[in-house]
């Protein structure tokens, strides 16, 4: 069965298909203060399938899985488990039914061991005392069964993020599992770890476990999914078989626009070399012998999965990574291991992938954030004091150009939407003469409107002669915006593709160990 309706769907017949779904959401709505996060969404999960939930940030994916996992109760509509209506009383209740979720925010106690975490809240006891021996044995069994290279007595704080995720997953397998919900599970994994996770998912499938898999990466849909449900603005837009899905269709469903409306045509005029990286190896080995070139007037892509080392390149250019060997040249000058200040002063701008973490001072105003990198120079400083009126003028100009909403530049960033926060982050690079933009995931977590605006800006910047290095795990972005693209795989530069060579197949072929079947 594959229903596809581009209008808000109401027609997924629950009883019309032979296999009874193990988990079903029927017209669930969730009202948060001021926001309708989910609007009458239908969703069903069959035993032994991977059902991908796909959509932009804010589309309602998180809310839906939180309802399925018992974190939130729906405001309207209901959930059925094996055909029976149920009312989940919380995560713990859901887990006893065999519905387990692994969220991005882990629920592990850092100072406790793996086995203590596995049984947290459901400790095995013997006459009121902890039965540590039984717990240890059970924990060991679970880990072995899943093939995780972990020992039950390791402390969580000593584990890598990926290993912690394994513990989260093991926690899900503690009880008899029938539904596994995974929220962007590869976000923090290296490729090898992701491969192991994928193998584990395959294995769980064969045991009849139904898997809800949340992602915004298209490559994972093809790799793992049986069916995909696309959400947009809290509504279900479509549910289709993965076999019928392709990038264009998914993107259109996700954004509600056709590709030509989303991506602008860019007139590339590659000029002088701006950024040259030769044989760069970082101390931690996250990038090994990487070389690349960005010229003025072009958009160069740097693609790869999370953990492929592509982010490391941008960070290394701004003195944020320790460099073991290799050279970075900017505008003909050796800038290897120079600081962020030195790079900014030379006209390079780096946009970090996580705006809250590294990009913005959330409790300060738009004005202060935008001018922050450039305060030392005119027009922001005059005779040693800040010139706040020219600061205001300058920032207001940029806010106008970016169509920032609300336009008031004295608002602090907490009060802006994610899309507008991202615009502010970009604005930091627009108040001064910048020749090179290194943009790491510039459209992460923004709505379509902002996405289009940001792409428009990339075009304008490129056409006015700036060089742009676009680091992205968003494949369509790479395919439609760049004139040259590098693909990284596990710290190595795998390929350099030019113009018409930049196709989905050729990029993807270099994403993974082998080309995708």
């Amino acid at each position, binding site marked *: 069965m594959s229903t596809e309706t581009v209008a808000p769907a109401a027609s997924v017949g629950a009883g019309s298909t032979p296999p009874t779904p193990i988990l079903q959401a029927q017209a669930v709505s969730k009202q948060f203060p001021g926001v309708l996060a989910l609007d009458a969404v239908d969703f069903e999960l069959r035993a032994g399938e991977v059902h991908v939930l796909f959509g932009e940030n*804010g589309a309602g994916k998180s809310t839906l899985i939180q309802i399925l996992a018992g974190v939130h109760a729906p405001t309207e509509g209901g959930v059925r488990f094996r055909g029976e209506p149920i009312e989940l009383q919380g995560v713990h209740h859901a887990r006893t039914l065999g519905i387990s979720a692994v969220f991005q925010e882990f629920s592990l106690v850092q100072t406790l061991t793996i086995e203590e975490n596995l049984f947290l809240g459901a400790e095995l006891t013997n006459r009121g005392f902890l039965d540590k021996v039984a717990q240890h044995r059970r924990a060991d069994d679970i880990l072995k069964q899943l093939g995780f290279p972990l020992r039950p007595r390791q402390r969580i704080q000593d584990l890598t993020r990926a290993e912690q995720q394994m513990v989260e997953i093991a926690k899900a397998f503690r009880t008899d599992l029938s539904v596994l919900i995974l929220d962007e599970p590869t976000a923090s994994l290296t490729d090898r770890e992701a491969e192991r996770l994928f193998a584990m998912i395959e294995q769980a499938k064969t045991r009849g476990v139904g898997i809800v898999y949340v992602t915004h990466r298209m490559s994972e849909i093809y790799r793992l999914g049986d069916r995909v449900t696309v959400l947009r603005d809290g509504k279900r837009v479509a549910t289709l078989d993965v076999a019928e899905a392709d990038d264009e269709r998914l993107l259109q469903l996700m954004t509600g626009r056709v590709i030509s409306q989303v991506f602008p045509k860019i007139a590339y005029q590659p000029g002088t070399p701006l950024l040259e990286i030769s044989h760069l190896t970082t101390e931690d080995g996250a990038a090994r012998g990487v070389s690349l070139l960005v010229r003025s007037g072009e958009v160069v892509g740097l693609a790869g999965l999370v953990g492929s080392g592509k982010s490391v390149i941008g960070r290394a250019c701004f003195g944020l990574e320790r460099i073991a060997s290799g050279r970075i040249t900017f505008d003909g000058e050796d800038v290897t291991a120079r600081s962020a200040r030195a790079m900014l002063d030379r006209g390079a701008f780096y946009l970090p992938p996580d705006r809250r973490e590294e990009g913005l001072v959330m409790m300060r105003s738009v004005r*202060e954030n935008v001018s922050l990198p450039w305060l030392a120079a005119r027009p922001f400083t005059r005779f040693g004091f800040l010139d706040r009126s020219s600061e205001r003028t300058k920032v207001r100009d940029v806010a106008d150009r970016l169509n920032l909403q609300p336009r008031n530049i004295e608002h602090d960033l*907490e009060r802006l*939407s994610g899309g507008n926060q991202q615009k502010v982050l970009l604005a930091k690079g627009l108040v001064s003469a910048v020749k090179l933009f290194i943009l790491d995931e510039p459209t992460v977590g923004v709505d379509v409107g902002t996405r289009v605006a940001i792409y428009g800006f990339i075009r304008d910047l490129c056409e006015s002669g700036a060089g742009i290095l676009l680091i992205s795990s968003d494949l369509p972005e790479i395919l439609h915006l760049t004139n040259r693209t590098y693909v990284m795989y596990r710290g190595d530069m795998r390929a350099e593709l030019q113009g018409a060579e930049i196709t989905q197949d050729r990029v993807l072929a270099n994403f993974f160990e082998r080309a995708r079947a």
Partner: protein
Amino acid sequence: MDRKEAQHRFDYSGALPRLFVRIGVLPFLLLIALIVFTALSDRFLTAENLITVARQATYLAIVAMGQMLALLTGGFDLSVGKIVAITSVITALTMAPLAAAHPDATAATLTLGILAGIGAGTLVGVVNGVGVALFNVSPFMMTLGTAAISFGIALTLTSGVPVYGIPDAFGTIFSFARIFDIPSPVYVTAGLFVAMYVLLNWTRMGRYFYAVGGNLKASRLSGINTRFYLFMAYVLCGALAAVAGALLTARLETGEANIGASMPLDSIAACVIGGVSLRGGIGNVGNVVLGAVFIGLIQNGMDLAQIQSYLQEVVIGVLLILAVIADQLRQFVMLRLKD
């Protein structure tokens, strides 16, 4: 997550919540305090009493302005009380022998004494800054440690007894003199307030204090030398506490190792009541001074209402906790106050 994306109006956009987010809890508290104490004592709302409050509040106001810098950068300074103490001791120990040896050279004695005292206090700030900014010691441990060190040194130098022999002129000029009926320390405080206002609002350093406290990583990526500004926050905090220490010495006319014990609590209270965020990045120097005045007002009002000083401690503690709860509430309302 989903909520952040939406641009809907919330129910928190009424006039009172907005005002609360904008100005914080302090004006409400001041208003309540004024009403209560005016009702309790008819001597409270008189010009003479208010001048007394102003003079009593100056020392705390100066320390609180320094404390604010540490708080802005996301830390705090628990050593301010002992900086006051060591400044007092060093000032007195420098002045006393000089005054005895050269009774006529009062100006030089005062200058040297003040410089030595403030220098010693500032040095503690430098040590704090080095520890926090360079060695990444948590501000809690660092300033707790230097507080113990300073106190130990002050006690060792004085054997725990007050240091006498400060020239009378010191107290006369820096504590008891009045210009237009206003005591001299109030002028010093006003001058420091103006300097701090300019620093925080019209210089890069001030802006960077807010940015570094608001998001250290983002500040570093914006090319700010975050270590230097963290360092400077503690140095300036130490210097301001030292100035307060010198002024307090002028008022007491002796060097004392035991003064300033309540300064860490009171100065943090003044800042938090004045709306400085404990998470860093938010704060307004005018409100901090008002916060100090408020605490002075409470103490004065309770004195007039004949509430004993032990109970006053309880009240300050309660107010501090209430202010922190109000700060949490403010964050909560602020996050929902989108437009």
